[in-house]
């Protein structure tokens, strides 16, 4: 894995360019479907590209009361870390670009960095809405992270290794983990936690538009907000990719009645299906309060994950 390959992997194929384009496209499709579900025309699919493009052309403002350094660094670190995850995730072949023994734990942490960056951005922006939003974000993170880790552990224990490549290889042989009765609760728990992780209604409490404007990102505008928007869209794609890799077989090429379906395509279809699910969920419920969300995560979702964890021991 010499440095040139690494640069190519980071910036072009599974990294920034690919993940960015697919992430923004998924975001655009999500907005179009939401529009149609709400009986309106909805924006074109490439709307996310237009939004991000316009934001980059805007003036870059840092509030005077904010700690400039953290305020500016937060979006950059968020984007950098979320793109790094794609090196560790199996995208086109069962073996991810960078593979090591326990990369599952590295992925879990990398997935949390954008959330922490948003919190840092919120606190550093010295705006009351930012502070309240970040506080809520931490509370919600404690909620869904517990469930997500339990679910991922259940899958890893079932396979017996903490490396994504092994999990994908195991599933290639024995079929999707989600279909196994002992691991189905974990899959459902992971999807519920994903709804919280990507801040979709009913869990978009940190960014509750009608209560605290835009939560941690209230003071962000222009290029910094564009970076956060890209990081957010890629994060949605990354969470979907991880759940697909762990529970739905990952990028396994198979032939469907004669047509050869390459790994990447099946992987993208499965990710798209998951994102479609979150879109559907977000259009049929209202936003919960932070205490209700925590109660939901710690009781219902955690129980599901725990059941499959115990059954797999």
């Amino acid at each position, binding site marked *: 894995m010499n440095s040139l390959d690494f640069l190519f992997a980071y910036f072009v194929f599974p990294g920034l360019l690919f993940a960015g384009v697919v992430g923004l496209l998924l975001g655009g499709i999500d907005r179009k479907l939401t529009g149609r*579900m*709400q*009986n309106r*025309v*909805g924006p074109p699919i490439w709307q996310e590209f237009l939004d991000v493009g316009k934001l980059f052309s805007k003036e870059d403002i840092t509030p005077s009361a904010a700690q400039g350094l953290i305020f500016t660094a937060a979006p950059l670190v968020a984007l950098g870390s979320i793109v790094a995850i794609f090196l560790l995730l199996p995208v086109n072949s069962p073996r991810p670009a960078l593979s090591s023994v326990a990369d599952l734990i590295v992925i879990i942490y990398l997935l949390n960095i954008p959330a922490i960056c948003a919190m840092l951005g919120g606190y550093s922006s010295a705006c009351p809405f930012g502070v309240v939003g970040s506080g809520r974000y931490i509370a919600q993170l404690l909620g869904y992270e517990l469930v997500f880790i339990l679910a991922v552990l259940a899958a890893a224990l079932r396979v017996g290794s903490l490396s994504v490549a092994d999990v994908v290889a195991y599933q290639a042989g024995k079929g999707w983990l989600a279909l196994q009765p002992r691991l189905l609760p974990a899959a459902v728990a992971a999807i519920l936690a994903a709804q919280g992780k990507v801040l979709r209604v009913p869990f978009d409490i940190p960014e509750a538009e009608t209560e605290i404007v835009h939560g941690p990102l209230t003071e962000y505008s222009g290029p910094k907000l564009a970076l956060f928007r890209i990081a957010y869209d890629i994060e949605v794609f990354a969470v979907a990719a991880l759940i697909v890799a762990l529970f739905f077989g990952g990028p396994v090429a198979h032939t469907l009645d004669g047509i050869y379906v390459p790994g990447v395509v099946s992987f993208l279809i499965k990710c798209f299906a998951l994102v479609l699910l979150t879109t*559907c969920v977000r259009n*049929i*419920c209202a936003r919960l309060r932070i205490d209700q969300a925590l109660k939901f995560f710690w009781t219902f979702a955690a129980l599901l994950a725990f059941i499959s964890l115990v059954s797999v021991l």
Partner: protein
Amino acid sequence: MPRILPTVLKNLFRGPATIKYPRERVEPPERFRGKPVVDKEMCISCGLCVRACPNDAISLDENTKKPRIWLARCIFCGRCAEVCPRKAIKMTKEFELAFYDKSKAVSE
């Protein structure tokens, strides 16, 4: 099972309730009160409309003595069209009345 799910899924396959204005347009109904237009020949310069207008948006031209309606002040209530004895003022169906230059916001 949330009651709104069937509605939401049905909406996916139903056409949107919204249209792509301004490319597609909807014809306003017959009684629509849009921009008031003055028919100069019919007008007998009686000034009833000037008095009836609740917002003093109508004034008679100095020399031609015909009503001039300042659209920036007009509230499109239709009183002028109602009181005009010769029905010289009519409320058209035109409602796109944005102007860059305020002096042009006038209906002669």
